[in-house]
């Protein structure tokens, strides 16, 4: 695993919400009032090779966004380590921002929220590299201009404010801001989810061009299976904070191994004529505050057996390129 750029090793993240004073008093009286613990990520291990685009897919509460935020240094993991190029990069519990790496940059879902509405576009792009002295001070404005052109905008837009741009244009600006830091790794959190279909195609093309030309490594977080299939080399499927399946995109879409993965594929509507049947997954997504025992998917799984209720399946090698966490592939469900 010498070529892997990013290694996520047994990372867990729990959010504890301490009850307020009133809740504590109420809890004292009724006997509850324990802190609420959300298990956002449990024991996630992943490697991303240099130049690879890894898709992270799952439904709400699966922890995909938390994973992105841990890698981008916004959250400190509760357990485990994240290494970039062999060096630990995560914010420790008291870590100051200055010590965080500039090598990981994030692109958010909503370009209307991710740009400071009162800061000119050029300043938004230039601020990070100028502060970290990534670009020499005398060429900053040239560099901003060329970055804007690189993402398909005009250099002259540097002195405009974000509200003057459409959603797709703002997302390009957010990409330019990330690229300005000359990152090794990009974390894209639902980066095209809020864009219109026609604009989404433009931004995906831009991303694929940049990724190839600059040799970027990326964690591509999305709920959209068709987008992920299009841009990712490998795909990680998550459910309720755990990694359930990891495989090259092509293999995964041709032959999903985990029952959740196949169920997910079956419930996605596709563009085509005449399809009328939805093979929906039954039941609701359980709460990450109180995940079911054993395999978290067992209450919704058509193939679940007694072992699934008892034992958490571990991530096991299915063939030389794929891993899956399901008892079906690891000794049966009985």
């Amino acid at each position, binding site marked *: 695993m010498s070529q892997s750029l990013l290694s996520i090793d047994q990372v867990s993240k729990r959010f504890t919400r301490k009850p307020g004073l009133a809740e504590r008093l109420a809890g004292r009286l009724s006997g509850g009032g324990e802190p609420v613990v959300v298990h956002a990520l449990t024991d996630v291990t992943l490697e991303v090779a240099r130049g690879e685009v890894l898709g992270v897919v799952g439904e709400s509460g699966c922890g995909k966004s938390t994973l992105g935020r841990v890698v981008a240094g916004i959250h400190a993991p509760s357990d485990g380590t994240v290494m970039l190029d062999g060096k630990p990069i995560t914010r420790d519990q008291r870590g100051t921002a200055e010590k965080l790496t500039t090598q990981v*940059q994030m692109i958010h879902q909503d370009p209307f929220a991710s*740009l400071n509405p009162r*800061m000119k576009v050029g300043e938004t792009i230039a601020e990070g590299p100028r502060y970290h002295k990534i670009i020499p001070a005398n060429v900053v404005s040239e560099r901003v201009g060329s970055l804007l052109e690189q*993402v398909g905008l005009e250099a002259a837009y540097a002195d405009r404010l974000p509200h*003057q741009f459409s959603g797709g244009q703002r997302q390009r600006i957010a990409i330019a801001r990330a690229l300005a830091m000359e990152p090794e790794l990009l974390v894209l959190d639902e980066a095209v989810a809020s864009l219109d279909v026609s604009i989404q195609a433009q931004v995906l*093309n831009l991303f694929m*061009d940049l990724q190839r030309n600059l040799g970027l490594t990326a964690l591509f977080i999305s709920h959209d299976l068709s987008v992920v299939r299009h841009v990712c080399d490998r795909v990680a499927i998550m459910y309720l904070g755990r990694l359930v399946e990891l495989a090259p995109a092509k293999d995964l879409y041709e032959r999903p191994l985990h029952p959740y993965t196949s169920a997910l594929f079956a419930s996605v509507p596709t563009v085509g004529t005449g399809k009328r049947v939805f093979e929906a997954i039954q039941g609701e997504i359980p709460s990450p505050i109180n995940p079911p025992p054993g395999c978290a998917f067992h209450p919704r799984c058509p193939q679940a057996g007694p072992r699934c209720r008892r034992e958490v399946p571990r991530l096991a090698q299915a063939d030389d390129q794929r891993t899956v966490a399901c008892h079906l592939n690891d000794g049966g469900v009985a």
Partner: protein
Amino acid sequence: MNNSSPDNSNVADSSPIIARETTATRLRNFWSDYCESRVALMALFVIIALTIGAFGAPWLVPQDPYDLSLLEWSDAFLPPGEVGSGGYTLLLGTDNAGRDMLSAILYGLRTSFVIGLSAGVLALTVGITVGLSAAYFGGRLEALLMRIVDLQLSMPAILLALVLVAMLGQGVPQIILALVVAQYAYFARTTHGAASVERRKDYIEAARSTPLPTRRIMFRHLLPNVLPPLIVVATVQVASAISLEATLSFLGVGLPLTEPSLGSLISNGFKYIHAGRYWLSIYPGIFLMITVVAINLVGDQVRTVLDPRNSR
């Protein structure tokens, strides 16, 4: 790196959706929105006139009310419209020491403005620092700071100011300090409220993951986005600082008569009001009222214009 520019079909989405908007056009729009209320426009002119009167007082008025050598005892208690020993018409009469009331009021207005503005600006600074830190850092610091602020907001500002002035003694700096302590809590609460909302937005997270240092995020990203509601609170708080100061002076704990503010003028004249010498108290009172009402009207209109719900 530049050979990676995407194919030209990407460039097609490049024209901004809104035509270039400069600071000048934004200001012009703000002004035309503001002018939609005649009353607010009038209030603004009143404030401008009062400001010119107050700060131009030394050049505008016939008499320096501080210069005791200019006062004539024979001029005492002249009613409005009389001509005094100085040879000019005393539009608002004179007080018990023979001061021209108009001169005294304009000088008093200047003191009131200085106190109101400096207390407002200082309270704004302190309030922003407290509110921003509480919202940004959260946790124990937030709980501590905001509980103090809540505690303070739960008692009348005048009471707090009274106690402080009693402890600190009389004089302009002491009054300003008392007013700042009494008023920063309003700014802290408003800042905290607005900043807690902004803090959760993605652009703050983007700045954190860049990473940029905390102080920079607080003052360059968070602060500009919480400023609009604060400007409104600030105008209203300046008015309230002016009336607080007047109240303190009226109660006799504010400024001495040798350094007249509107409050001390009202207080001084109050003794004579039953003797039919109404002008000593009434005119400074009217000026105080006009000032406070005008500032509040301007603040209200600014709030209306800045409110995004009103934008069309």
